[in-house]
């Protein structure tokens, strides 16, 4: 009988939960419809005002006034959605101090130290649009947040503010995954002067290799000539991983002095370095390297053969004739690779060389 009672209680409990779930479904659908309409309406009203500012340069005041009339969460969502696609960095700089004084903005930013991660996330997101110098301590705290999503958005906020925060972001770079590093490079590129100043003293053979490769990658992402010249000087570094990153970075350094350096790397003991050197020579359209590249198509490593053949196709002209020569040669692996690449359309060559 005890079991029957237990089952009866479970049944009543389950029944109540089912009723609550169905009620919840109805209620949620209504709430979501209303909220989504409000946000869409906010976005719909803000879009033309932003557009007018872009076209007529009427000033940002109408934007601030419109946002003040919207419910705070609608104002926030609308700005978050439209600021990046509509406004250049310079326009955001003009709009930021005006918005920063608004009550709805201050309310969102005051929650930057909330225990609820999504409030910190909202604060970080808004800081990436309206943040000012006074917000630097909050951005530093958000950069070290326990929630990866908050940290990621805080990078945009740090990039907005620039200054000493660039150094803070750079310091953490070597310990991040590749994808996060690339995201940070893209964000930091808004402040080339600060990044160049912070990176230049780090691009030295005395830096530990694990960190040096990050500085090399950052230099490549920024493609700033002063930095790439220093990267080029690291081509003889004893660590193969450093040479690999140098070879990869040098495809952004379109100068005659780069080609002999890459030709030397094309002879490297490490196949990964040779492959990246071949790729860089192709990207630089280094016609003078066609001979060594034709030899490299016969390399024992698949990736070196592949990158060298693509490089010859990319360079074109006489280099393409070299590629066809290999395609009719007696080395079967080189012949297959050369035939494969020689048969590709020019669009395919460009696409496959890039990735």
């Amino acid at each position, binding site marked *: 009988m005890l*079991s*029957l009672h237990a*089952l*009866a209680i*479970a*049944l009543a409990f*389950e*029944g109540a*939960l*089912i009723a609550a*779930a*169905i009620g*919840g*479904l109805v209620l*949620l*659908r209504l709430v*979501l419809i209303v909220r989504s309409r409000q946000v869409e309406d906010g976005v719909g009203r803000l879009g033309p005002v932003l557009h007018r500012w872009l076209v007529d340069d009427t000033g940002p005041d109408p934007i601030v006034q419109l946002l003040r009339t919207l419910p705070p969460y609608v104002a926030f969502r609308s700005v*978050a*959605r439209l600021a*990046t*696609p509509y406004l250049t960095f310079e326009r955001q700089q003009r709009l930021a101090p005006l918005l920063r004084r608004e009550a709805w903005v201050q309310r969102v930013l005051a929650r930057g130290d909330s225990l609820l*991660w*999504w409030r910190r*996330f909202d604060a970080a*997101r808004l800081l990436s649009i309206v943040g000012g110098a006074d917000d630097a301590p909050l951005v530093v705290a958000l950069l070290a947040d326990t929630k*990866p*999503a908050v*940290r*990621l*958005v805080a990078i*945009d906020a740090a990039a907005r503010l620039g200054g000493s925060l660039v150094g803070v972001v750079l310091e953490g770079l070597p310990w*991040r*995954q*590749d*994808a*996060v*590093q*690339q*995201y940070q490079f*893209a964000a930091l590129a808004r402040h080339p002067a600060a990044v160049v100043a912070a990176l230049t003293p780090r691009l030295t053979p005395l830096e530990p290799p694990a960190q040096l490769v990050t500085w090399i990658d950052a230099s490549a*992402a920024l493609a700033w000539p002063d930095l790439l010249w220093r990267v080029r000087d690291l081509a003889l570094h004893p660590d193969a991983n450093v040479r690999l990153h140098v070879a990869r970075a040098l495809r952004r350094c379109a100068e005659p002095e780069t080609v002999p350096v890459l030709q030397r790397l094309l002879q490297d003991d490490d196949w990964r370095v040779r492959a990246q050197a071949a790729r860089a020579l192709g990207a630089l359209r280094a016609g003078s390297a066609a001979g060594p590249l034709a030899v490299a198509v016969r390399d024992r490593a*698949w990736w070196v*053969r*592949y990158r060298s053949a693509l490089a010859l196709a990319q360079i074109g002209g006489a280099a393409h004739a070299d590629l066809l020569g290999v395609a009719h040669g007696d080395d079967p*692996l080189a*012949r*297959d*690779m050369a*035939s*494969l690449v020689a*048969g*590709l*359309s020019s*669009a*395919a060559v460009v*696409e*496959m060389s890039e*990735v």
Partner: protein
Amino acid sequence: MAATVLVGSWLVTAVHAADLGILWYMLLVNSFFALLLVLAAPQLFAHWRFGSEDVLARSLTSSAVPRVSILVPAHNEAVTIVDSLRALLTLQYPYFEVILVNDGSKDDTMARLVAAYDLYEVPPAVMRRLRTERVKAYYRSRTWTKLLVVDKHNGGKADALNVALDAARFPYVLACDADTLIEPDALLRLARPFLFDQKIAAVGGTIRVVNSCTVQEGRVVEARVDSRWLAGIQTVEYLRAFLFGRLGWNLLGGNLIVSGAFGLFRRDYLTEILGYATSTVTEDFELIVRLQRHLKEQGATAKVVFIPDPVAWTEVPTSVAVLGRQRERWHRGLISTMVAHRGVILNPSYGATGLIAMPYFLFAELLAPVVEAAGLVITVVCTLTGLLSTRFAMAFFAAAYLFGTLLSLAAILMEEVSFNRYRRPRDTVRLVWFAFIEPFGYRQVTVWFRLKAFWRYFRGDHSWGRMKREGFGGGATPPAIAAPGVPPAP
């Protein structure tokens, strides 16, 4: 007389013991489902919250996202192949290639591909690391530079995936079925864990049911719930399995399923474990178990995670016979994988995989049809013979029924709160309806198919069973043509 009384008393004791056992089993398994639900809810919120932000759009234009090779095995997929492939080739993602492997199709899959994508044969300049069935030829497309098609002798899905894995250039590979429609931004969303600084071995996304959805040019433009009971119930089943089942496992640390129809993997891990096993009929489940073992044995910290918002759509069976073949095969694959990796079960060296995930799959998945069938038979027989009170039996069935319905409703609720893909109120009403009718007939039928799996497993059956496809409808699949000669390389 004394003997009869003795037998009767023994029978009553046995029946009560079995009833109690089944009751406890139900309590334990359902409590675990409830735990998964509780664990899944905050994660679902987090993914929804971040997934709706514009950071996603910005990452599209940066070089932050990893390069991905999409592996597509195809066997007799002529009905859907052109649309599916077009959807893959037009994904919103900066760096990817598609490697489609025609696994000895007997229909005109290859002919349709050649015609639709202007294929030409190229030399076999790919790295070969895995042993597979012989490749007939490699083709590139004159119109789609990202596409590589491999034509090979039939060796099964796992063998085709291994050929594609060998031909892949990029460090990450996405395995997907040829009959799966991947949403345009799904790959971008699937790459999100990389932006979250996580070490990833594999990421799985959500599979949804495409039957009755409006599909144009290989894209689902309007999500709908099929009004037919079989497809409709499977829609609820998929929501339940993905929205809280797999999401809950993320926090328990032993995610063992990344659907073969839609999963992103680190290529080097897959090649280290010698790719997909060709001896199993559920190569996706077996692969993840082997991958989890490998990660633990190597002391690697990379994880297998599931995220809910990247969506791929797949066609589900609409006839009981086809459903039966599918479910029987899935369960047979589960049995063979559990047997092959029995050393992991309750083995503390494998962490959460050994102590939580594998025992769960043994008790709550593998043995479920046996316990469910036994419970059904014992309860009905004992109620009819008076050994069990009718009121108790009714209450027992009602409790089990309502709990199952409650879980389905929770999944529907989570779907409504987060991604809300089914915009029409009519579809939500249908989902609720199917959640209520699922326990009547559908469950019992699937229990029967899963029981059959034991029989066929012990007979050593390794067949897949034939799947019948209806196609996506509304697409622009070109008419079938006679197989033309493939033009030579220019």
